[in-house]
């Protein structure tokens, strides 16, 4: 990351982004990081966006100092939960320190009715009971946002290779009974391919999510503090452009969608069979994460269409 990406989003840029979204008739905004609550104006920014009638969702680890939590509680706890939400990304407690665990607990206590848990799947071994325990203990929102770790272009991170996704799928579905008993819906973030689940597994997952299951992959549109926009976190190094070059969110979406389409036309999906898959054609499934697909070509000569390369 270069220095400009390390700086905080400024007030002026926040106002610009809020105006941009308003013109685009978008009324929802997510605050991410790093850890967004570390921003020196986090509370001010959040309350400002709420004043402007945005629904604000904050992606947080929940790990914060007492002072910070006190600040958040003072200004945010009385906001109606339909206007403000937190997605608290959890690691398994055995991977966190005691202090971190305490801080997370305090956060969850304070903002229970606002919070959905998130969990990033980066290995085939899954131990998810703690999530349900937290939901029950703190009376959190009864939904878990499962994300798949995807290869970050230009970076080195841990993720499940495509060939092992089926193993992960079985282990995830094994928890459906637990989710069902506790009235917890396991939802998917983008990049999950449909075919790693059997028909029966898809049925169980669909029931647990009231019939709504998504196997999407498309531009999510992230904006950095330096006002650069990119398609999504895994593709944050690819085809970045300045927000100032666009007139609306639709334009940004179309720009990145166009790139996605070109890549998908070239590659299809993360599996070879994606190319001929009817569900890819009818967009019931988007063939897994596009970053995965591009990553598979990293050892090739750069002879394919330009859109694949940054």
């Amino acid at each position, binding site marked *: 990351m270069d220095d400009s990406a390390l700086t905080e989003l*400024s*007030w*002026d840029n926040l*106002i610009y982004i*809020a*105006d941009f979204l*308003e*013109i685009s008739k978008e009324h929802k905004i997510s605050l991410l990081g790093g850890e967004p609550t570390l921003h020196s*104006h986090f*509370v*001010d920014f959040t*309350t*400002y966006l709420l*004043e*402007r009638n945005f629904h604000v969702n904050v992606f947080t680890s929940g790990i914060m100092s007492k002072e910070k939590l006190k600040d958040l509680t003072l*200004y945010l706890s009385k906001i109606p939960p339909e206007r403000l939400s937190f997605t608290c990304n959890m690691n398994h407690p055995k991977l966190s320190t005691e202090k971190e665990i305490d801080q997370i607990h305090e956060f969850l206590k304070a903002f229970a009715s606002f919070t959905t848990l998130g969990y990033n799947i980066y290995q085939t071994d899954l131990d998810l009971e703690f999530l349900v325990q937290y939901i029950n203990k703190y009376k959190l929102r009864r939904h878990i946002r499962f994300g798949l770790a995807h290869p970050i272009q230009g970076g080195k991170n841990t993720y499940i290779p495509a060939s092992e996704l089926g193993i992960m799928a079985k282990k995830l579905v094994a928890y459906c009974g637990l989710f069902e008993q506790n009235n917890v819906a396991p939802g998917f973030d983008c990049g999950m391919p449909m075919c790693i689940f059997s028909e029966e597994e898809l049925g169980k997952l669909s029931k647990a999510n009231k019939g709504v299951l998504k196997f999407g992959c498309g531009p999510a549109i992230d904006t950095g503090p330096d006002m650069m926009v990119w398609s999504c976190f895994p593709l944050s190094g690819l085809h970045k452009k300045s927000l100032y070059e666009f007139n609306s969110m639709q334009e940004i979406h179309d720009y990145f969608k166009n790139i996605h389409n070109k890549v998908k036309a070239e590659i299809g999906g993360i599996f070879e069979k994606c190319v001929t898959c009817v569900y890819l054609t009818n967009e019931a499934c988007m063939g897994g994460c596009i970053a995965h697909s591009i990553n598979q070509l990293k050892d090739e000569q750069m002879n394919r269409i330009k859109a694949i390369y940054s």
Partner: protein
Amino acid sequence: MKDHIIVCPFDEQLLAKLSERNVVIKSHDLNILQSIQKHLNKSLRLHAIKIQTDVPLSAISFQEDWLKLPLAIYSPEFGNYRDLLHQLNLIRRLNIRIFLSSEYDDNYTGLKILSSLNINCGLYFNNGSINWEAMNDLMHYAVYSKTKHAHIEPFDWLVSNYEPTDYMDYHSVYFNNPAKYLHVNEKEQIALNEQEMLNNRIIGDGIPSLDRIHVNEHYNDFINARYDIMLQMNECAYCPAFRICLAKFEHLTNKNDTCKVFFSDFINAADYSFKQRNSKRTKIWQL
């Protein structure tokens, strides 16, 4: 002729003599608003109340009692956003313009925040420094932003009233344009604007002399002051934006980096807005 609005302190005797004129009451003390409230039912033709405070905006305790008062609050600093937060709803209900000083960089952002939260506001210049780039950015926001937002002065006043072939004096926003406002003190001394009053440059005495102001030599000299600039043949006389600035920053030495750039952009913005206004007018057939 009673076409001038009189800017004066809160002095009951003086106000009684000005009962047939529109007035702007000026003060440095917010507490005066209570007393003015009591006067509202009497024959007071109140155009506005100008309060110049020395506390940050966020430190002001806005009151429900002020709902009926036309307020212009001048504050040196924006202060803390979160301290203002709990008062935003009340402020939006008030008949108010909030002015922040050009001296502090945070104020330019503060004004964007206020405007984007639907609070009418403006920048004022108190002989302090100006961040010209920030002001240009603020002006662009005020004029070109496609989002709905409250007015930011003096930009909105100027572009709304702009006629390309007229001279514009944006000091009207601050009650300091002698073509529209005259300043009177407790001793009934008349000055052309606030600064002239502070510097004791009195051009007339007594309320009745307000009716003869158009034949007052000093008044006419001031109204025609732009011609002195033209005669001096200085930089301002050759500036493309002269008609909207009228050499208010004549004292600056590096105009090419400061006022000239800003006002050139500003007059372009005014032209743009003028074209927009005219193109929107629907020509309806006449009865």
